[in-house]
């Protein structure tokens, strides 16, 4: 009777269980362990016996994270960078999405293609390309020198500015696409109605277009904010030593210090921080679906 339905639900849940929950439990377990000079580099493990393993668990690593201000600063700095990048992505992405939605019908598939096109090359290569653009001898500096706008090359590489540029560039499609989807659905006659009722173009945009694309903006913000918060590649390639981000700290703990327990604790906290925006994002999507039905 309900077997079909049970299987239908069981399959995705089994998938989530195997690929998300179990790895998370393993990471969580490591975060409760101690550093050890062995393979794997922590103790206790299941080899020591289950009850002995549970007895040896403690919150030492979490206490360590709280006491060392490096981690606090890394979390806060990540939040700040993710937040500012998200705002920048809205400011850059909204006009682009608006332009796409207002473009002639026959142009839209091409424009959409151009937005998605960067995904066809490796993310790593694209970030490396920015090194070539932003470095002191890079394309941007050469171009500005040639134009005569500057006399000496600007230092952009290895600064937080480069990280912002990298994040906004990388995640811009995730901002543009949901906003475009919202604007594309927007009935042109609503704008005309607003003008007919006494709004100037600008006022109609503010009172009708913006509120009606709000869900797209919110969705885009989460899609940029969530991955930007844990971003590791961009700050390590473009940011230099001055940029503190939790993803980079996590990588260094794991691979440079080989301190798996502390690295796992960092990852667990990061996940807890991310749960808040993820839940908010889900709610936004759900509410939007309800309004549309």
């Amino acid at each position: 009777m309900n077997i079909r339905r049970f299987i239908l639900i069981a399959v995705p849940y089994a998938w989530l269980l195997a690929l998300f929950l179990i790895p998370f439990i393993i990471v969580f377990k490591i975060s409760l362990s101690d550093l050890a000079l062995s393979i794997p580099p922590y103790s206790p493990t299941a080899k020591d016996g289950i009850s002995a393993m549970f007895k040896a668990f403690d919150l030492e690593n979490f206490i360590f994270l709280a006491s060392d201000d490096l981690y606090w600063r890394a979390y806060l700095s990540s939040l700040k960078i993710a937040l500012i990048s998200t705002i920048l992505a809205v400011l850059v992405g909204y006009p682009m999405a608006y332009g796409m939605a207002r473009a002639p019908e026959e142009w839209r598939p091409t424009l959409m293609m151009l937005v998605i096109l960067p995904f066809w090359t490796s993310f790593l290569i694209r970030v490396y390309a920015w090194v070539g653009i932003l470095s002191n001898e890079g394309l941007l500096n050469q171009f500005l020198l040639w134009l005569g706008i500057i006399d000496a090359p600007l230092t952009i590489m290895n600064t937080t500015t480069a990280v912002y540029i990298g994040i906004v560039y990388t995640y811009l499609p995730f901002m543009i696409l949901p906003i475009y989807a919202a604007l594309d659905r927007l009935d042109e006659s609503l704008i005309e109605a607003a003008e007919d009722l006494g709004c100037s173009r600008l006022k109609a945009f503010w009172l009708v277009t913006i509120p009606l694309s709000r869900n797209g903006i919110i969705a885009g913000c989460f899609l940029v904010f969530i991955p930007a918060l844990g971003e590791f590649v961009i700050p390590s390639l473009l940011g230099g030593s001055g940029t503190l981000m939790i993803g980079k700290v996590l990588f260094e703990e794991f691979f440079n210090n080989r301190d798996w327990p502390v690295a796992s604790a960092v990852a667990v906290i990061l996940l807890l921080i991310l749960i808040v925006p993820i839940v908010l994002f889900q709610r936004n999507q759900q509410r939007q679906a309800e309004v549309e039905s």
Partner: protein
Amino acid sequence: MSQPVFAPWDDPNEKPLIRFDDVTKRFGDFVAIDNLSLSIYESEFFALLGPSGCGKTTMMRMLAGFENPSAGKIELAGKNIAGVPPNKRAVNMMFQSYALFPHLSIWENIAFGLKRGDMTKADIAVRVEEMLKLTRLTKFAKRKPHQISGGQRQRVALARALAKAPKLLLLDEPLGALDKKLRQDTQFELMDIQESTGTTFVIVTHDQEEAMTVASRVAVMDEGQIIQVATPDRIYEAPNSVYVADFIGDVNIISGTVKAAGDEMYHLDWVANEAPLLAASDRTFSESQPAHLAIRPEKIAISVDKPTEMKNAVQGTVLDIAYLGNLSTYHVQLGGGQVIKAQTANTRRLSRRTITWEDSVWISWSATAGVLLER
């Protein structure tokens, strides 16, 4: 005893509220409106009627300010309104899709236009309540547009457009999305509201019945031009062309050539072996001029025996009978092959039908039943 008839278009001293003066509108190579002139008077309920693509929507969009004429001028209350943006015109529009703001409540939708002016909050609230009462929406004020029915949405759109008390209200296919029964009720509601507010209404529609019901005058359009402007009864009973006669209601068209037959009377030769048809006309026709006789089906009588009084009587056989409940339409094939529709009212409930398929019948009509047309 009788009320004065509302007919400002017959009064030469009356100033029109809207005047289209040789207006042409082109979109690229396409001529949407072709050198058109038209006057619409205050408090009129004016209908623009025509098939899709005839330019009626373009006319309305020019009045609203979304399009500007390529040539000629449009005057509103004596002032040329070309180039005045929509938000600066004392004109409001009710959109075909209603265009209600989905993120605002019914109350806020109606208040939207009022808030753009310099009204105080208290005055806005009073006006919104007034509009809610007029359109019987008071109960729904707090709801969002997706939480009410199609008919209610239509009334919100009307209330929102009327709230600013415009000089002119434009209605773009206002009842197109409603089902037939609701549409008929709403037509009368629209007329009541138009009468009680005294606002000039211009309605665009492709539904001739709707235009005939609500309008004080109807303009029948085709290919960017106005073919005839007249009151609904004139449009129906005295169309100026076969196009208008055919567009409004059901009609039989009999083509032939005319011969004079006395004072304002003509004979129409239509087929070789039948007697010419007698038709009265106040238009003058020259001898042997080609002409078309347009007769409405309900003006044609059908009988088994040859009628003696009628000026025109033709024999034929019944091809089809369409029973509509209140009416029956007989399709009668004449000797020459032409099919004429004759309509009778079913006034008695349990009468036996005396005429049935394949019967030989006579159809007849008087000399004044039809209209003789040049084109």
